[in-house]
């Protein structure tokens, strides 16, 4: 059976191991920290190996097979790169996920053949950008109060336009859906964009049609 090998990382590796075990997979944890390993061995139903995950003799103890998945989580990018290349070269592992600590190294890792990388700074930044999106738009577009309003809607489950494409919604001509935020993604809408429950929909319109737009998107009470 395929197994998941987690190299390095503190608490994150524990929570990750726990959730993968709960899904029914076999997990191997490799960590340099002896105390941490003892704790893990007590708490988890996993093989725990205490040692340097950038060393071939330690990695060998995990009995890696090519169908396994390796997750690499140390705070040192050079260690992560080494482990990634060792498991690929010596055990034929193809499915490798590596933490990349320095955002500048994200492209470098890809250039060096490690394609699936996670960078916390970039992830948090994405979320921040989404949060700041509305503020920024208001700052960048000189909204003249009488002529243009910028309205944000969160689409409820009973919205009459839920699961409809924008082109099928008869919005008044003096309005336009300028952006949609879905979970953490910003979507620049087109006619065939389909609205989903929970979407945050940003509409620019003339104040005269604001009520009509609200009714269309949220339904008439």
């Amino acid at each position, binding site marked *: 059976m395929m197994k998941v090998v987690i190299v390095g990382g503190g608490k994150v590796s524990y929570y990750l191991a726990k959730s993968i075990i709960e899904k029914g997979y076999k997990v191997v944890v490799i960590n340099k920290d002896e105390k941490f390993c003892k704790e893990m061995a007590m708490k988890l139903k996993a093989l725990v190996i205490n040692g340097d995950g950038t060393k071939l*003799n330690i990695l060998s103890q995990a009995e890696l097979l090519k169908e396994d998945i390796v997750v690499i989580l140390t705070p040192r990018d*050079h260690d992560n790169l080494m482990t990634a*290349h060792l498991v690929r*070269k010596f055990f034929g592992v193809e499915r490798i996920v590596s933490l990349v600590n320095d955002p500048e190294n994200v492209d470098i890792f890809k250039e*060096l053949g490690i394609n699936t990388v996670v960078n916390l700074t970039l992830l948090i930044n994405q979320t921040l950008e989404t949060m700041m999106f509305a503020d920024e738009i208001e700052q960048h577009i000189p909204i003249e109060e009488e002529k243009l309003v910028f309205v944000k809607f969160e689409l409820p489950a009973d919205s009459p336009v839920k699961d409809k494409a924008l082109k099928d919604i008869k919005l008044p001509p003096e309005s336009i859906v300028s952006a949609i935020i879905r979970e953490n993604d910003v979507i620049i809408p087109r006619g065939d964009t389909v609205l989903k429950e929970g979407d945050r929909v940003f509409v620019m319109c003339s104040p005269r049609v604001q009520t009509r737009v609200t009714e269309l998107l949220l339904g008439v009470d």
Partner: protein
Amino acid sequence: MGSIVANYASSEGHNVVIIDKNEKAFELLSPEFSGFTVHGDATEVENLKAAKIEKADVFLALTNNDNVNFMVSMIAKRVFGVRKVIARVYDPDNFELFQEFDINAISPILLMSEALKGVLISPME
């Protein structure tokens, strides 16, 4: 190690740039050293750019950490296209990996054991 190579290369008339995260290491350079120094971690790409690595004919990774040497050598080779890349490699298990990526690997342990063999064998004859 780095300072010995740097002093030598500089005295031979080459343009040398040294990157070291330990500023004290620069004190080991001879007064005649005519190259440049960059104080910083070589695994941060901005420091490699500051050293104008893309113009280098030869790149040497001589830290005492195989993983650091592997990463910076790979970057020198694959991202900046440096033709000749040489790395110090401690763990003999890593040797093959470096060579696979066309990095010229030099192992102090293998050199030492070769030298020892010479010393040990010759008196027996």
